[in-house]
């Protein structure tokens, strides 16, 4: 118990120290869309998209189900120039569903799609303090 108390105190002091330095600054990743060789890549953080000076950018993901057997996930983005990207999967893996369930205001989303089929080939969700 004493060891636990010491470790807890140490963690608390570390947290307080980090707090005093106000944390690492935000990365401010706006929505980027890149297309080449049959694939499109889209990425960006919620916070940078929402607080960009334009009123154009957005990024997000969606999950849907008929509550019986069908499951459907999609991700979408629009950059400051108005270019859009959208991908979907009607057979998402549990890992994909778990990743999308973690999307919130601290999220950085990256997704890749096959431009011929429109299907998602990769989705990455990153949640960290510097995304705020």
């Amino acid at each position, binding site marked *: 118990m004493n060891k636990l108390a010491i470790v807890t105190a140490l963690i608390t002091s570390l947290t307080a120290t980090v707090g005093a330095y106000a944390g690492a600054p935000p990365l401010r990743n706006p929505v980027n869309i890149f297309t080449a060789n049959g694939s499109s890549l889209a990425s960006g953080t919620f916070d940078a998209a929402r607080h960009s000076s334009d009123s154009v950018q957005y990024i997000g993901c969606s999950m849907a*189900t*008929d509550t019986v057997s069908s499951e459907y996930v999609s991700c*979408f983005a629009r950059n400051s120039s108005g270019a859009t990207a959208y991908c979907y999967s009607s057979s*998402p893996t549990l890992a994909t*569903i778990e990743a*999308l369930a973690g999307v*919130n*205001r601290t999220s950085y989303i990256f997704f890749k799609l096959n431009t011929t089929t429109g299907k998602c080939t990769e989705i990455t969700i990153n949640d960290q303090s510097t995304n705020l």
Partner: protein
Amino acid sequence: MKNIAIIAALAASLDVTGAAHAGLSTSPPTVVILSPGNSIASQGYGALNGARRTSDKTQSIGCEVAATFDGWKYVSCYARNAQGNYASCYKVVPGSLQALAVSAVNTTTYIYFMGDRSGQCTYLSLTNESALLSQAGN
């Protein structure tokens, strides 16, 4: 499979339409009670931020998930609009997506659900999107 894709696209377009109108976070709940004979009895949709920031004290929308230690799971979603109309649906022993999706509801979430006459959910969609954040960022 096609049906769910069409409905998902419809739900997404509702969401994106809201986002395109620069209000960005204004998506108050809308409750639709359909006429008898329709296989879908009710539907509700809207964003948490939109509901929370309306001037009335009536509107709300949300979902919940519950689980017991013996494996029983339950999800439900509900919405109340400005007129006080209320719609909800529930599902016992939902699939993995339903439970995970509902547990993912936060300030960036737009909810869309449909229920049949027995009250069971027949469609559930949750979208987390940057445009649904308030200007203050919460």
